[in-house]
């Protein structure tokens, strides 16, 4: 498991970057965002709100003010820009899984399960045949 579940929310595990690859944002970016971001904050916008809007955008078109805030933040934050593209790519990947393109040979029914299913099917066939013949014999006298 790469993450722990707390109250239905997946939180990053306690030691998220064993090799130090998960670095903080670059200092330069943080400084620029400190100044340009004033405008951003005035619009009550942040990376978090941007990410939420970007997610909402998959469900419905954004409304006027939402779209403006989205576009402005998109223009000044390259991390959010890239992040939005990655989310779209993940979405395409999920669609591929959903549409059954995902045909690797990994998952197979166990022999035990196949046997169980075979028995259940034979039983069902018997029941279906029995129901039909019983129904027929019922109708005759009536």
């Amino acid at each position, binding site marked *: 498991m790469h993450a722990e579940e707390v109250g239905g929310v997946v939180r990053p595990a306690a030691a998220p970057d064993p090799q130090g690859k998960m670095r903080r944002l670059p200092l330069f970016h943080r400084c620029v965002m400190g100044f340009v971001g004033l405008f951003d904050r005035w619009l009550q916008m942040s990376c978090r709100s941007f990410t939420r809007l970007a997610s909402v955008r998959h469900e419905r078109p954004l409304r006027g003010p939402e779209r403006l805030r989205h576009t402005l933040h998109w223009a000044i934050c390259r991390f959010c820009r890239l992040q939005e593209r990655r989310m779209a790519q*993940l979405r395409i990947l999920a669609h591929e899984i959903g549409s059954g393109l*995902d045909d*690797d040979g990994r998952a197979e029914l166990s022999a035990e399960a196949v046997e169980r299913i075979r028995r259940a099917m034979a039983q069902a066939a018997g029941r279906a045949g029995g*129901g039909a013949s019983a129904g027929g014999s019922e109708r005759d006298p009536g």
Partner: protein
Amino acid sequence: MSERPGGLTTGAMDEREPSGRSDEHEDLLAHGNALLRYALPRVRDRCTAEDLVQDTLVVAVAKRSEFAGESSMRTWLVGILRHKILDHYRWQQRHPGDQPDGDATRPADDSDPWFTSLGDWRTDPNVGLEVLDADPSQTLERSQLRAALRFCIEHLPAGLHRVFVLRELEDLEPDAACEAAGIARDSLAVFLYRARQALRACMQKKWVES
């Protein structure tokens, strides 16, 4: 009531018959693995997936006469399985206590593990995700990506998982997805936002660590 005796006798006849009939069902059973692969990312554990495949094939045997042959048999079976999965979700909603993470129809608390209190990213959200730029024609890389995402989807918390599957894998319209998942229309965006971020973090971790 009067059908009972008839049912009993045919039931007794079955004891001898299956050997003769089993060949008939082998063509259905041949689709078993494909059905399992369809069900696995949609329900979170293998036992349930196998049970659903069994239910599907049993229904298919009983309704065989209704199969018109207009679509392929695989499509027909997947259609049945899809209904079974939706039924399973409905059952899950009625028995929320049976799931490890309790009431899954409401989003949990509002805190965010990925952002600072000011709403900035804590860490670079895109590290490790360069792999997503993989050319779709590179089938090997692509199938590795799909396997990773499938793993992450299967490990989503139950509530998020159900909503995400209905919306993204089943590709239902937002309203239909809400109805099937038993959540309010307003909370759909929150659920999906959480699920997508969780998946992103999970995929990222997979590539950063490897």
